[in-house]
């Protein structure tokens, strides 16, 4: 195991949620970078390769998260991506990563509903980082 702390990029246009997630992920012992939009995140990704990214779905557009995930995967094929959103229940957007069809077009390793508990998130991050 590396001694270096892993770097996690958090992208969300809700500054409050971003702050809370940042606090949570820092407390789990990771280094954190944040971006408040798809555009800002793309700029970060130009120069930095995080070990993992957690991306909100609805930002500038309702599908900004998917687009960002797609571009991030193209640039860093081995960086795990988590898409987090409060979208499913109320929008009728229904997707998961369990069908091959969805896996094909949603370039993420995991889809998480917002409001996840810290220990759950820790487990999922560790799984994806193979810690």
């Amino acid at each position, binding site marked *: 195991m590396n001694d270096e702390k892993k770097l996690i990029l958090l992208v969300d246009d809700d500054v409050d949620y971003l702050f809370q997630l940042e606090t949570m992920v820092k*407390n789990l012992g990771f280094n954190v970078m944040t971006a408040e939009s798809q555009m800002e995140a793309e700029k970060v990704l130009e120069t930095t390769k995080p070990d993992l990214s957690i991306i909100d779905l609805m930002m500038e557009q309702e599908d900004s998260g998917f687009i960002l995930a797609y571009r991030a995967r193209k640039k860093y094929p081995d960086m795990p991506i988590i898409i987090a959103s*409060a979208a499913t229940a*109320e929008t009728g957007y229904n997707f998961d990563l369990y069908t091959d069809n969805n896996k094909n077009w949603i370039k993420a390793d995991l889809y998480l509903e*917002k*409001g996840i508990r810290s220990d759950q998130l820790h487990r999922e991050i560790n799984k994806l980082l193979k810690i």
Partner: protein
Amino acid sequence: MATLHILVVDDEPGIRAGINRILHNYIVSYPFMDEDIDFNLIDAATGEEAIDILNTAPIDIVLLDNKLPGMDGIEVLEYINQQQFDLAVMMITSYASLDLALDATKSGAYNFMPKPFTSQELRSNIDNVSKHLFLKRMTRKMQAEGKQIRFQFLSVLSHELKSPINAIEGYLKMMQERQMGDLINDYDRMIDRSLARLNGMRNLIMDLLDLTKMESGKKERKLREINLQTIAQTAMDTMEPYSIQKNVTMKLHTDGNTYLLADADEMEIIFNNLVSNAVKYNKENGLVDIYLKDKNNSLEITISDTGIGMSQQDVELIFKDFVRIKNSKTKAITGSGLGLSITKKMIDQYNGTIDVQSQLDVGTSFVVSLPRH
């Protein structure tokens, strides 16, 4: 090129051949349609045969003779109505019997055509029925899209309502778990942000109420001569606490008769939205100028600010539901994204217009023109 499928139902082979000859290579075009229409003809000699075809092939138009050997035209028409096929029926009658024609149109036939007919008559009837079909389908499509727009509105709305709940819940959990320690002061930021998000939610709900009242059309409109100067002054008073914080100066200028036949509540919504934007998106020590100008047949309201301004790209978006211009300068400003869309809808109800002129970092002017009736 789009193709409409015409089913010709007539027991006389001569008529079927004649119709085929006339409509073969015939093309219909209208200025409002994207593409021209040509026709594919299918024949049936009996009503029974016609029904078999209707059940298996996509048919757009039926040219239907009434006098058929087995079941007659009206019976075929009844079957078509029962099955609710998406098509138009034109009856062909051997002699123009008014009773039959009336029967047929009552049962849903688009129109009827007396036999014998000239090729010109047939073509002009086909013109009409194609146009009718096109419009009917277009209307239905637009209604379906209207529902789609409604659905999008609701899904964005629920997202807008759920985000602050999540944010506040998150802060409360952090406090519950004492994540910042035991000192209440260390939670000040979280408390402030929670209150700000609650406030945003309250504003969104107020805006939604405005919107609902307007869209349901149920709100009683009380039209009377009101002085917009008073309304403008009220809007300024409402914004004053906020303008003092930013040291923004608001000034009202009037020129001529400022009375208008209007609903006071609705005028308040218009002024509140525009004046509050002019203050919210202003700079420290900025100015807001409100002009009411009598133009005889209309009243012109101009609300100018010396604020952050918008790009042309942004200006095109601002009247849509839930649109908020997101950039570093607007980050700290809360809003529901509904204010201007409501304002625009309100102005539309008065057959008025709203125009925007904006320059980044210089300011924005909204010019509203409300006609006098």
